[in-house]
């Protein structure tokens, strides 16, 4: 039953998270991150997590909170430069990092969610990223094999949802969220506004509810800005 997807607390579903789990987390920088779920994960205290996310937040917000709490064992990301705790844990060997080109990361998550185990791309050929990967030529050009990613769970942030888990995102807060939704064995969405079934125009839905197992309506989103840049008049 569709309305069974609506949860009122992350505690209702967190029994499904074990230490050592792989979590795919939506967001780009601090934009479109599942901020309520991250706070709840910190409370729950699960450890040794592998987190697949484009970035790792900042020291005091987003995934940086889980780093500070020593809950992350490994990050799979394309850019992690905004975070001093990250640097400290990486250099001490506490934190393992797999750097993946951003487009390859997006496609690996999309592929994982679409049942595609791997794909070939030119991205990374001739660079340290290609080391140890299968190379194959197509029409005289060299490509490398990259594998799809599937997560035990995915955490995503939307703008509006209905109780079926249909989701609409807002502006560039969409980013990795629709892909993460596809690639979680269990996907937990949080949104700023829950509307009734039928209130979202089916033409405008970005993530169909089939990908979403649980949906939570958050309140008082902080939506922090990493680099507030304004026009100089």
């Amino acid at each position, binding site marked *: 039953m569709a309305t069974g997807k609506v949860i009122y607390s992350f505690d209702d579903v967190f029994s499904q998270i074990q230490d050592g789990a792989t979590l795919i987390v939506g967001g*780009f*920088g*601090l*934009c*479109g991150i599942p901020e309520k779920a991250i706070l709840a994960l910190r409370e729950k205290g699960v450890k040794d997590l592998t987190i697949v996310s*484009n970035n790792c937040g900042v020291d005091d917000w987003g995934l940086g909170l889980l780093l500070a709490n020593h809950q992350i064992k490994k990050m799979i*990301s*394309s*850019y*992690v*430069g*905004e975070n001093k705790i990250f*640097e400290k844990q*990486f*250099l001490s060997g506490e934190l393992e990092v797999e*750097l993946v*080109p*951003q*487009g*390859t*990361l*997006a*496609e690996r*998550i*999309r592929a994982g969610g679409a049942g595609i185990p791997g794909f070939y*791309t*030119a*991205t*990374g*050929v*001739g*660079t*340290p*990223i290609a080391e140890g990967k299968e190379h194959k030529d197509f029409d005289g050009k060299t490509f490398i094999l990259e594998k799809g990613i599937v997560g035990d769970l995915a955490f995503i942030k939307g*703008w509006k949802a209905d109780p079926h888990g249909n989701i609409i*995102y*807002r*502006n*560039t*807060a*969409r*980013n*990795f*969220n*629709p*892909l993460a939704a596809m690639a979680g064995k269990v996907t937990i969405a949080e949104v700023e506004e829950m509307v009734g079934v039928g209130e979202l125009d089916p033409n405008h839905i*970005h993530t169909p509810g089939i990908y979403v197992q649980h949906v939570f309506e958050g309140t008082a989103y902080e*939506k*922090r*800005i*990493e*680099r*507030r*840049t*304004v*026009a*100089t*008049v």
Partner: protein
Amino acid sequence: MDVRLKIIKRAVLEIEDGMNVNLGIGMPTLVANEIPSEYNVMLQSENGLLGIGPYPIDDEVDADLINAGKETVTAVSGASYFDSAESFAMIRGGHIDLAILGGMEVAENGDLANWMIPGKMVKGMGGAMDLVNGAKRVVVVMEHVNKHGESKVKKYCTLPLTGQRVVHRLITELAVFDFTNDGMQLIELQDGVTIKEVQEKTEASFIVSPQLLSNQN
């Protein structure tokens, strides 16, 4: 003129009316300010926006609307939003006409290094490796020498590569080079610069385009 401004003013000439363009973080982002206002150019941001507008005024600032450098921006009329896989389908699929990117080193065969320095904290490549392999045309903008006066235009890159033989054109404060099947070619000099000065400050070997040679005489 400031070195960076000189590079930016030359780089903007690469942009043609009607193009879809991706500008890298840092100096390339500043090229946007110089695009002629009558041009219909769509700037792509790899976090999911085609049609980047100017920075917002104070009360327009929107946490849900940022560029790939994580700066708050606006969207132009006619812009579109999409997810990250779609964004890189545009890039990987050859739909971006031009990418203008910064560089740490460029080699005479068109190799580019711009993402990591061994021994320093590695922050990641972001979308740079995808862009250099996917965009129809890749133009690198960088200062010709480093702060120790050493050439950044090399015989071979010493830093780990971002992409192999991916640069089509290099623009510095001294000169403009193209990377062709015949090797690296000097095609333009910035104002007041001589071929001799470029040769002295360039580690890479290059040929001088016949047209530039004839203009010099």
